[in-house]
């Protein structure tokens, strides 16, 4: 247990440092660090609806984070969760607003379609990476931008809310009777769904054939290939799982706390979930714990502008600092796959070949390693 405690402390140390730095910055620019700090405490623990909001934000972070953990374990840097989430929520809102079915069936189809949409969106990058070698970091990032434009189109075109005001375009709201959760409450259904997903993710990663394959491929793709594992199939599965979970989260947001799809103002759930999975050392229990922690943080972050005059952008600074520092300690797990200086002597480099060919080697090393 002490070991776990020590690990927890080393994980959380960068977060504390990030907060300290942010507080110094806020104090230096004339905000009262005390009121910011007490605002955070209120937002996480004592304020009105604090625990509700913590749970509200933990659920999407845990769901998306578990998918990202599966991807990263296999050595696939799928950072497109935001896009997969948005596409999933578009599928869900489309079913919810346009299909005419009894409520249980409607929710069922909306969830199925959201999962499929997220998984397919993720599979675009997966197929390009696994079969053609296109760098998944770039493609998933670009797919995020494409998804943002898709939301822009849906929210200003086909499903536009004619009564929305302000900068952000919004789709029509879901009828309250359709939702499982209003904005100031939490729903048993969503909590049970999340627990089910956590259990499923645990048995997948720790107790299933695919989980072992993911682990082996992430650790050493060549050895895994020699063991007769299907590298490409397994990697593609991780894309489907990550995208499917992000898509599912889209549905839970639409039927739950959000009730609609808005452009712009959604917090960058996909990005925070990446940090959650990293802090959780890509383990299920760790990701859940980190998800609760960052869920509380998100609740506090959204509560802060209410109690102090800190502009909302100050909270992005905290997020950025946390991400900046979070991997400073735990590098090994991630760097093993992404290391740019992995000492792999390669026969392509043993001869007297020109430098330019060496560069080709750097660029293609990752993809070659991973596909065996």
């Amino acid at each position, binding site marked *: 247990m002490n070991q776990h405690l020590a690990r927890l402390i080393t994980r959380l140390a960068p977060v504390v440092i990030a907060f300290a730095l942010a507080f110094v910055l806020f104090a230096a620019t004339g905000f009262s660090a005390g009121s910011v700090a007490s605002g955070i405490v209120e937002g996480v623990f004592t304020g009105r609806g604090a625990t509700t909001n913590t749970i509200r934000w933990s659920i999407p972070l845990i769901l998306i984070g578990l998918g990202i953990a599966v991807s990263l374990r296999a050595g696939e840097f799928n950072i497109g969760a935001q896009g997969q989430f948005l596409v999933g929520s578009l599928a869900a809102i489309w079913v919810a607003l346009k299909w005419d079915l009894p409520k249980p069936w409607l929710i069922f189809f909306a969830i199925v379609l959201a999962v499929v949409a997220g998984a397919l969106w993720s599979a675009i990058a997966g197929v390009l990476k696994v079969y053609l070698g296109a760098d998944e970091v770039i493609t998933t990032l670009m797919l995020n931008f494409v998804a943002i434009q898709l939301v822009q189109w849906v929210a200003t075109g086909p499903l536009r809310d004619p009564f929305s005001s302000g900068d952000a375009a919004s789709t029509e709201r879901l009828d309250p009777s359709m939702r499982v959760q209003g904005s100031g409450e939490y729903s048993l259904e969503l909590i049970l769904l999340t627990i089910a997903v956590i259990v499923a993710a645990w048995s997948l990663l720790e107790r299933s054939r695919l989980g072992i394959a993911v682990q082996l491929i992430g650790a050493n793709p060549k050895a895994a290939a020699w063991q007769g594992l299907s590298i490409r199939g397994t990697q593609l599965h991780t894309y489907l799982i990550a995208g499917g979970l992000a898509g599912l989260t889209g549905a839970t947001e639409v039927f739950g706390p959000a009730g609609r799809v808005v452009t712009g103002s959604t917090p960058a759930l996909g990005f925070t979930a990446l940090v959650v999975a990293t802090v959780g050392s890509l383990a299920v229990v760790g990701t859940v714990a980190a998800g609760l922690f960052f869920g509380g943080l998100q609740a506090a972050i959204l509560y802060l502008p209410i109690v102090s005059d800190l502009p909302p952008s100050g909270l992005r600074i905290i997020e950025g600092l946390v991400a900046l520092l979070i991997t400073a300690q735990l590098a090994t797990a991630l760097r093993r796959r*992404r290391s740019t200086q992995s000492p792999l002597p390669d026969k392509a480099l043993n001869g007297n070949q020109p430098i330019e060919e060496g560069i080709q080697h*750097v660029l293609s090393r990752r993809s070659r390693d991973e596909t065996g």
Partner: protein
Amino acid sequence: MEEFIASTLRSSVPLALAGVGALFAVRAGIFHLGIEGLMLASAFTAVGVAHSTESIILAVLAALVVSAVLSTIYWFLLDHLHADAIIVGLGLTTLSVGGTAFFLDVIFGQRGRLDSPVGLPRPIRGADDGAASLVSELSILGWLTPLLVLASFMLLRRTAFGLRITAVGTYSYGARAAGIRESRVRLAAMLCTSVGSALAGVELALGGLSTFSEGITGGRGFIALAAALFGQLHPLATAAAAVFFGAANAIGVVTQVNSIDFVPRPFILMIPFIITIAAVTVSAIVRTQAQQRRMERLDAHEP
């Protein structure tokens, strides 16, 4: 058509500057996802300083300094604290998104945008007809870009410094055995990247409308990185890739200006990102095939 060419040239300047900057870091073995953040921070610094001092030179210098400081922090986190390059890069970008909006509010009391009284000079401004009209909108940085690209080419291929950068990224053990101080070389490479990103940010903010708006970079930093990969980390090819992506961007600009609306606008704004995905895929295919040919050749030579 003239409009399209002029817009392509203007759009490709920041991409070329940032892309050629990016390839230094990638050659040194760092997958640099912080370029977007560096561009944003530089753009804001440049406009902020120009707004306060009305001096374009100070603005450019300040942008270079801020970009270099952020890059040094990035380097320190990677080289001394063994952080993950991708997560730190994304963190740097998030920090810049938050930081620029925060300081815009705190220092200048503005939300959303800040105007600069001065902009980058345009050498042949005002030429209305013929070929000159295509480039009359180009800022001085636009004119300098080809020179900077050539200079990068010479630096990488004709100097010991450039070869060291490539050596560190290509074969770390070999570089160390040859007595190269890897850590310093990586820092130098990242500072080169910081110069490219800073100039790209300055060009975005002060090259045209002389204004900073939140999120002014709009993913261009990531596209610039993709341009470097598409250009196979070669400066001239990267610049060519930047022009290609610039053309994709110009489609959006031209259709908006002429209010062509048979396709909803979001779909037109998607084009650069989709083309980037296609380009990254094509270059991966080309690379894999070249690799296979080389391996076959090497196999043939073995006894």
